[in-house]
């Protein structure tokens, strides 16, 4: 029983980070048909923003020293700002470009962010120590769960609930969901294109920042490439969730995280190093089964 609980918590903890990432990718894709590869670099940027520029291995925290009540909002704000800035400086000028072009631009932007960080901080991963007492374990129904893991799950859950509330209960959210489904019709009902897109970028940046905070606390490391793997899994989750479906992205993020934990546990020892190969083969099967995504809006009709 406790082992099951342990696995469950592991699966939830990993899955919830992917879910946050997938939501950030899906929001932007919904309103702009843009796969934003820079999203992973926003995550790293937010983490490094806490540090004094230096090439030392041990990070010197700057705003990272602030009490949580100040630090968290500042980092979230930084995430939102960098995301909105990238919309204004880059993506706004590409509204009518084809998806491949937009995608490559987002990749180039991520490349730029990465190398700006590299210039100031060097490529060596840095140890950082945020809220270290969170790694103490707590006991739940006999399972010993690190407090941080528990917090990650709770925080993700809170963020998801807050975001769902935002999307469900506010006008911005309503407009964003409508725009993600049918942008032109939404505009014909008075929804302002620029405002919706900016809001989507801001929220997406907030999500990236929260992932950054969680990851930095969890791993105790700031690494320039820390966002990339999450971004990739999030991207995959968004597509198999059904492009344009926000709940689909969240659920598939959770599922992929859970699947990777379960594979890690249940694969025979010899096969365990090949976990990702199994995972991604499953992704391909999933796409063959439902090419439009598992939760794709059912509006596919006549194609001619």
């Amino acid at each position, binding site marked *: 029983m406790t082992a099951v609980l342990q696995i469950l918590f592991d699966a939830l903890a990993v899955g919830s980070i992917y879910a946050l990432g997938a939501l950030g990718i899906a929001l932007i894709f919904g309103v702009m048909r843009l*796969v934003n*590869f820079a999203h992973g670099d926003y995550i790293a940027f937010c983490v490094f923003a806490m540090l004094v520029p230096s090439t030392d291995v041990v990070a010197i925290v700057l705003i990272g020293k602030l009490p949580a009540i100040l630090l968290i909002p500042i980092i979230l704000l930084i995430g939102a700002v960098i995301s909105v800035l990238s919309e204004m400086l*880059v993506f706004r*000028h*590409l509204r*009518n*470009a*084809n*998806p*491949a*072009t937009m*995608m*490559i*631009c987002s*990749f*180039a*932007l991520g*490349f*730029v962010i*990465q*190398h*700006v960080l*590299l*210039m100031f901080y060097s490529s060596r991963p840095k140890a950082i120590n945020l809220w270290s007492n969170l790694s103490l374990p707590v006991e739940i129904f006999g399972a010993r769960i690190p407090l941080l893991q528990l917090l990650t799950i709770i925080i993700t859950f809170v963020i998801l609930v807050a975001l769902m509330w935002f999307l469900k209960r506010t006008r911005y959210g309503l407009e964003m969901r409508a725009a993600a489904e049918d942008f032109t019709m939404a505009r014909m009902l008075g929804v302002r294109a620029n405002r919706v897109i900016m809001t989507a970028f801001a929220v997406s940046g907030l999500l990236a920042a929260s992932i950054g905070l969680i990851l930095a606390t969890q791993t105790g490391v700031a690494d320039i490439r820390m966002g*990339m793997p999450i971004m*990739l899994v999030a*991207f*995959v989750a968004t*597509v*198999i969730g059904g*492009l344009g479906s926000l709940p689909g992205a969240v659920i598939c993020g959770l599922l992929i995280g859970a699947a990777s934990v379960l594979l890690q546990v249940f694969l025979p020892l010899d096969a365990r*190093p*090949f*976990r*990702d*190969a199994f*995972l*991604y*083969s499953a*992704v*391909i099967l999933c*796409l*063959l089964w439902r*090419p*439009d*995504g598992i939760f794709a809006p059912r509006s596919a009709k006549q*194609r*001619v």
Partner: protein
Amino acid sequence: MKQPQSVLAKTISTPVILIALLVVIAILTALFGSGSFARTVTEIFIRVAFVVGLYIFIGNSGVISFGHAGFMCIGAYAAAWFTVPPMMKKVLLPGLPEIVSNAQLPFLGSLVLSSFLAALVALLVGLIMMRLAGIAASIATFAFLAVINTVYANWESVTAATSSVVGIPMVTGVWTSLFGASAAILIAYFYSISRWGLALRAARDEDIAASASGVDIYRQRLISFVISAFVCGMSGVLYAHYLGVVNPDAFYLGITFISLSMFVVGGMSSLSGAVLGVVIISAIIQILRWFEKGIDIGGLTLELPNGIQEIAIGVVMIVILVFRPAGLLGKREVLLKGWPFKRRTAD
């Protein structure tokens, strides 16, 4: 009855110009370049071969593939399997089958055989994945790359996992890589003027009309996928023989994204775009590198801080794509009209 002029006669100048450009670069390098510059040019030529391989599939089908670095990986490792001295292989890669570990093929033999292996893998996975279209196909190719990377990075007895396989004869230089890049250009050219290339480009523009014209899109995508995997596999072989060592992470996301960027900046629907994208972006990178090292202009030393080069190249790519969203060449090819054959009809 007017005879239509043959496609070959109309368009042969394109590959000729592109190859001539590379030959000129190679000659200049041989005459004036330093050893390290020759290495840079070799890398550029290998990259040309890889991106041309991307063009064969992506350019003609319109489906973005993130997976082709996987074929480069397969080609490179196969080259190691076929050319590393048997003594070393038995120690390093004990899991290889007897017939492979006893073999030591010459470069050309390994080139052909390894590229075929990449094509064979493409055929097998393509049979499954080419049923997909659009972004689902792109994700599937990415998943394929992740599978390949995981397997090659962990299959200790056959790939030495994350430790590098050493002992591959370092035979790729400027001329060998020029040969490889030229071969890639010719394969891509002849594919794209073939009936397969025509049918696939039609499907890229209008898939529904292409089906109504009798085109079996699945089959055409598969053919293109296999040929492009062959070329990408070949670029991997060249790369292995250039570095002398292979390591799975050399064929993962880094090379995928930078190559795709060069390809899109050049113009992803044109062979010339593929070649020129690599050449132009690589040239800019090289110039920026020189600036990083410091350049004397009239007694004044211009020196850029380290790391500016990467940032600048990212910015340059964004600026190019903002102003030319279809890439530098768009859908055009470099072409000398009426060369080398005069139009037979004058109307």
